[in-house]
Every structure is written in C-alpha cells, then in structure tokens.
C-alpha cells in the first residue's frame, strides 16, 4: 500500500517551493537590475558618471576586483605607481595624457600606450641623446655630455632649486634649439598632455625623484614607457568602470 505525503510534508514542500521561487525571483531581479546599471554606465556620457553618486559607487565596486587582478601588479594596490620603473601614480595630480577626465582615462585603458595598435597613444618617444642616433625616424643630433649636464641645470633651475646659473642659461639655449626639447615639452618645459610629454618643472616625476642623476639618465638614455591595451581582453563596460575608479581615486587624493 502506497501513501502520499502527509499534510505536514506537503506544507514543507510548499514552503520550500515558495522559497525557491522567491530566491529565483530575487536572483532574476538582481541580474536585471545589475544589467540595467551596467547598461546605464555604458550609455552615460563618461565624464558625467562621477557626478552620479550611485552609478559611480556601482562602477567603483564593479571595477575594484578587476583593478586588483589586472592593474595592481604594475600601478600598485593603492594606485601609487612605481617611480623606479616609470609607472605613473594614478593618484597623481598630473596626467601624461589629457587632463584626467573619465573619457581620457578610458581611452588609455582601451588602447594602451605604445601598445602596438592603431589607436594606441603613441605620438612621440623620449630620444636617448647619448646615442649616435637619438631617435630613429626623425633627424635629431646627439647631445654632448656637457650639453646634457647644462640641460639638467636648466631643469633644476626651472623647478626652483639651486642650480649653476651659467650652465642653466646654456641649457635653456640647448632646450630651445639644439636638443629640440621644446618640440614636445613646450617652451616653458611644462609638457604637452596631447602627446604624453610630461611637465619637467612640476614636483611629480615619472622616473626617479628629479635628481640630477635621474634627469641625466632620462636625457641620455631616453624613455619609452608603455601600458597594455585592454580592449578585447576586458569588456567595454569593465573598462568604463575602471576609468571611473581611477578618476575617483585621483580626485580623492586631492
């Protein structure tokens, strides 16, 4: 003789089914809501996202594990960068490319710097002036050791530190003429964020700490830092979220 479930068991089954249905509904609602927020993040004008507190908080939370997985190994867990390796701090006040808007950060993450794709940021390299050919592909004469030391004095002086006056004066001439430094770093040495030429008179340095030796090494050996392009590896919305995270971190630091 076969018995069906008793009334108590039937109740328990009903409750379990209701719980499962609720759970499913909750998961569905969460998924829909999550997808809707991702879509909203992607459809928004990137520069307006930080102004929307909810959306920005969502983007930052979404991007944080991605940053830790893909970016922290170079830029550091606290986005502090590494001056010994020429990796910029993402909480700095100066930006190599652009002014630090979300759209500009997003473009750098998408296509990288010197990352070997047609949209990457790569308009110029820092020549190595202590080489027979400082910059392949562009006619530029090497500098003499004394010239480099003079330019270093000029930059030290421009940064407001004590420098050898005569050498600084000669260095200014070399900066503006023979070395053609002004072409990228501008006549006032404050750099050009359109091409990723850093300011040479600020307090923030990409390589080292702005000592005479650091400056000499950069001028003599040249610099060509790079950043991977994440387009194709990370989804567009993840990259947008990362850009918001970096923007937020850089503004918190102020």
């Amino acid at each position: 003789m076969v018995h069906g479930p008793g009334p108590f068991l039937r109740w328990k089954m009903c409750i379990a089914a209701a719980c499962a249905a609720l759970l499913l509904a909750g998961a569905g609602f969460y998924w829909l809501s999550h997808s809707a927020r991702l879509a909203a993040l992607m459809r928004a004008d990137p520069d307006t996202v930080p102004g929307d507190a909810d959306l920005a908080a969502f983007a930052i939370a979404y991007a944080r594990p991605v940053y830790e997985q893909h970016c922290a190994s170079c830029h550091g867990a606290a986005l502090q960068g590494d001056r010994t390796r020429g990796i910029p701090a993402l909480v700095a006040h100066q930006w190599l490319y652009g002014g630090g808007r979300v759209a500009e950060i997003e473009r750098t993450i998408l296509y990288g710097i010197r990352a070997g794709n047609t949209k990457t940021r790569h308009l110029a390299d820092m020549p190595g002036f202590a080489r027979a050919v400082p910059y392949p592909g562009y006619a530029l004469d090497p500098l003499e050791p004394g010239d480099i030391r003079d330019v270093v004095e000029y930059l030290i002086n421009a940064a407001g530190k004590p420098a050898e006056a005569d050498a600084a004066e000669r260095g200014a001439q070399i900066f503006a003429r023979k070395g053609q430094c002004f072409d990228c770093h501008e006549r006032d040495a404050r750099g050009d964020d359109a091409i990723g030429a850093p300011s040479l008179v600020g307090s923030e340095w990409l390589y080292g700490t702005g000592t005479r030796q650091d400056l000499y090494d950069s001028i003599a050996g040249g610099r060509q830092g790079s950043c991977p392009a994440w387009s194709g590896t990370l989804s567009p919305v993840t990259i947008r979220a990362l850009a918001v995270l970096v923007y937020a971190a850089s503004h918190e630091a102020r």
Partner: protein
Amino acid sequence: MSMVHAASDDGKTYRMEGFWDPRRIHPLRSMILFALGTIIGIAIAGYGLFTAEGTVTHRVPPENLALVNNRPILRTDFIAQTETEFGMPFGETSREQRLKVLDEMIREELFVQRGLELDFPGTDPDTRTALVAAVLQQVVAEVTTRTPSEDELRKFFAANEAAYASEGTMVLRNFLVSAGKGPAATELAQRALAALRAGATPEELRSMGVEEVVPEHASPEQFYFAEKVHIGATLFDRAVTMDSGEVGEPIALPDGLHILQMVKNTHPTPSSFERARSQVLSNFVTEARKRVEDADLRYLRGKADILIAEDYAADYEATEADKP
C-alpha cells in the same frame, strides 16, 4: 466530424482523418510540416545571404552606438571622434554636433564595407600598405602589451649586460704633424711627443709647427661614438685604450702623423639592473616583437602555396634558405 479524403495522381485515396489530432501520427501532416520547414529555412537563409538586412539584430548593445550591417560603432570611438573633431570635452558638445559625427562615422563604415566588397585590399597600394602595418601590429600586440616578469627581465639583462653600460666619454687632444713636412716629419713627431710628455701646452707645440686638430663646434668632452666620428676608427681604437694623462706614440695616417693626448677617459660603467630597467624592458619587448614577427611570417609561408616563375625560382629559394 465529416470524413475528408485527398486524391493522389495514381488514384489512391489518403484518409485525412486524424490530420489535426496531435495525439495521432499522420504521414501527410509530417510531410507537410517537413516541406514547410524546409521552405521557411531556405527563405530565411536566402534573405540573410543576399541582403545584409536579413542578418541584422534590432537591439544595439550598450557599448555600441550603432550597428552598420552588424559592424559596431563603439561609443568610446564616437566620444573620441567627437572630442577630436570639435576640440572640446564630449559633455560640452551639442546634440547636433554629436549627430553630425555619428553620421560621418556611419558614412565611413559604409564606404569601408563597400571598399572591402570592391577588394581594395587586393588592388589599392595604400590600402595594402596600411593592411600590412595593421596586421604586423596585431601580430605583435600580445608581446607588446605583455608585462614580462622581473625574472625574465633580469635574465635578459644578464645576457646583454654590456649593452647597458653608460656611454663612455673622453677629452682628447689630437696633434698632427702634417705629411707635407716630408722626411723631417718623423723627427718632428718624436720631438713633439717628448714635449707633450714633458707637459708642453698646445701653444708650445704650435710654435714647433705641430697643429692641434680641433673639430668644428665640438666641446672638449665627447661621447665615444661622437669622438669616433670626429677622429676616425683607427685613431679611436687607439684612444679608447689610453688612460687619462697618457700621450700615445705617433700614428701614421695619409694626412700625417697623429699624436693623441688623452686628457680624461671616462670608461663606460656598467649599469645596475634597477637603473637600466626601462631600457631593458624596451629592448626585451623589441626583441620579442622581432621573434614573433619572424615566427608569424614563417607560419604564413608554411601554409601558403607560393609559386615562383622559373627564371626566379632558383635564386629566390637560395635567398630563402639563407634566412634564419
């Protein structure tokens, strides 16, 4: 329910009873459904095959702004294009400006797709050049963007340590006893050599008839590579071995006897890995790119069917054999 009959060509009659009853198997219904499915499938495939519109989706994913024949126009590209075109942040551009850019991007996409249909990559030299460059970039993109481990970089540095020494510099004086002085030149050179070793100044040597060769517009201190250009390989090879303060024996060249006085020779000093790291990384990536490019070309050659005309085949194969 009335009985329905269908007559075939051979006069046989099929019963339609149960045709609409899904619980019963009916051969005619199966045949009709099969034929219907085939016709609909062929129609959809034909529509998709012969018109681009047949394959479109009607939903634009959030990361895209438009789909042109299923090719996406990315929002990020649209934003960058708008900012570039109007020279202001995207947020400050007007709706009209944005629509103008969108229209331009759609126009460009349409022309690009038309260009592919017309096989411009197969015929147009500029397109082919751009295509080669783009493929090469794509091939090396992974090694370009990969961050090598510190261990890999240190090994590379250790294998090429000499390349990371600082460039040597020297302050060198080059005195010339002109070949025009004839047989007396050797004797004059010996006297000049003795005088220099005794501490004579360039002015004192000039009074003896020995001139200092000074390159135009050059400072006394020069990098090795620059000094080599100034004085030539023969003199440089000797100079680089001299110690500071040393005066070398006369060296005979077609223009006369050269006496080198090394005022200061700063030999290249090996860099530490930490100091040379950025250069090591750059060289590491450059070498990796070259390796990947070569490997990719070998792969493409390997799977390609390349037939060379008889008058070139043997020579071409010989040059190919020489390649690594």
